């Protein structure tokens, strides 16, 4: 049992970039310049930045679809240069914006591609496919359908679980939800986070949408033109104290509000519920501070009554408390 865990089933790996530089031939500026960062095992690292900042390039260096010129990248302490590129890729889940499902294969066969390449026994492949199809909310019957028979959102779900199929330690995702409508995108983001809870991988996730980065990332790496790392930190830290003007502009003038969206009322200290104003609006502990603030402003109320799941009053939230939270570093 313990052995199986050690062998890597479902485990995650630490990824380290050290002084990595990539120059495309015939280009003056580097696409990625002296990039150093550590993605701890099991965390989601979001690469974000304007178009052309080298996000895709940096991500593709990890599975060697692009080779770097200088520096090194290690996965679990091993340099990826020492590994056979094909073997390396089979151990890394890969999801792209255009999805790239194989149109001539059914959903089930698409998901089974890498397990088959790895020579898994038939029975195990069948079980894994069934498990993933269910995990991502498709019907069992969808397994035998072709990609052309699915909606865009369903296709992206299949693309996502196809990458998870062989239980990789690392996932690379390049704007996987970029082409979806806002509602489907939101739903898939939530599903992705749920999947991540179930099967913890080390994820490098590329997007140019700062809100997506804040929502999904344990850490955010902000790249600027020329492939230079501008800041690498937890979302809250970046929103609280942007390293420079570029980062501040990139995260937006509403960074204070975005920061409030990161925390729920259950995570902060509330005022004691003495002398509750009878007409104060109510909300649950699961509400984000940002939504709570919005509620107070729209209701024109100074205070908000916070109730827990059983309807008991948990405390009081005041506008003053919110602004004090914003001032925290």
């Amino acid at each position, binding site marked *: 049992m313990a052995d199986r865990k050690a062998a890597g089933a479902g485990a995650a790996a630490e990824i380290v970039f050290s002084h990595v530089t990539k120059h495309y031939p015939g280009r003056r500026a580097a696409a990625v310049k002296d990039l150093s960062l550590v993605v701890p095992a099991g965390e989601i690292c979001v690469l974000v930045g304007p178009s052309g900042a080298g996000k895709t390039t940096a991500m593709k260096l990890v*599975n060697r*679809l692009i080779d770097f010129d200088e520096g090194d990248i290690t996965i679990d302490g091993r340099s990826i240069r020492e590994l056979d590129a*094909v*073997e*390396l*890729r*089979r*151990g*890394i889940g*890969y999801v*792209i914006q*255009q*999805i*790239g*499902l*194989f*149109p*001539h*294969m059914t959903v089930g066969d698409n998901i089974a*591609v*890498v397990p088959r*390449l790895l020579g898994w026994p038939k029975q195990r492949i069948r079980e894994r496919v069934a498990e993933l199809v269910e995990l991502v909310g498709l019907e069992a019957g969808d397994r035998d359908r*072709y990609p*052309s*028979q*699915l909606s865009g959102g369903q296709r992206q779900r299949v*693309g996502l679980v*196809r*990458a998870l199929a062989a239980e990789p330690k690392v996932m*690379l995702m390049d704007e996987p939800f970029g082409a979806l409508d806002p509602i489907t995108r939101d739903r898939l983001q939530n599903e992705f986070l749920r999947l991540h809870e179930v099967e913890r991988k080390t994820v490098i996730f590329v997007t140019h949408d700062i809100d997506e980065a804040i929502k999904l990332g344990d850490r955010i790496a902000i790249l600027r033109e020329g492939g230079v790392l501008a800041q690498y930190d937890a979302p809250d830290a970046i929103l609280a104290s942007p390293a420079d003007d570029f980062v501040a502009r990139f995260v937006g003038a509403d960074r204070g509000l975005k920061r409030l969206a990161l925390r729920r009322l259950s995570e902060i200290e509330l005022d004691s519920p003495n002398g509750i104003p009878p007409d104060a609006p109510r909300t649950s502990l699961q509400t984000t501070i940002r939504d709570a603030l919005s509620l107070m402003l729209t209701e024109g109320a100074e205070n908000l009554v916070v109730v827990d799941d059983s309807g008991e009053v948990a405390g009081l939230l005041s506008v003053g408390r919110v602004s004090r939270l914003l001032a925290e570093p």
Partner: protein
Amino acid sequence: MSGPPPPVVIPNFGGASKCVTNNDLFCADWVQHNWGSTLQPALLEHLRLTLIAVAIGFVIAFAAAVVARRLRFVEHPFTLVGALLYTIPSIALFQLLVPFTGLTETTVEIALIGYTLLILFRNTLAGFQAVPEDVLEAARGMGLRGREILWRIEVPLALPAIMAGLRIATVTVISLATVAAFIDDEGLGSPIFRAIQSNVFKTELFAAGGLAVALALFADAFLVLVQRLVTPWARRERT
């Protein structure tokens, strides 16, 4: 030198029917009598000529398309050679080959293969080129090797185009192979030539010509069926 085979008289098998001696439009009794001795062997020879030409032509064109898929500069020269072979009138091409390979089946096959190359190469290459870039990118990123990408992804996805090429090539060769009897006395061209030389014996002309047309139609329908079977994914649309 080559030339038309020596003239023959309308075959007289004992009491030739009135229909035959009158050279009426079509005499079923003649066809019945000569099916086993003339028409059926000619049909089978024709089929064999066609199969060999299309098979070898396909192997050559497919290999060339596999190379051209990656090395763009191969496409032009091969297309040029194919187009040249395709546009030379068939009789002239046969004659050009005779000094080298004589009045043999080899001559016939070389010429027929020449006619298939352009069609098969163009279609196969178009099939490869139509494979979406994101599909290839995903395949590479998932760790498929070059050869696995070719056989598991590119060839299956090129199949509709490849099959379309095979249909055109097959029908073309069936039609052209009748002229081959001019060089090598076999196939459905053989009874056709003989009929023309015997004062245009209409029954034999129509019977053999009709068989060539039927063979072409049948082959085409057969290939359509094969195509449906090998590309089930191409038919089903979103429901």
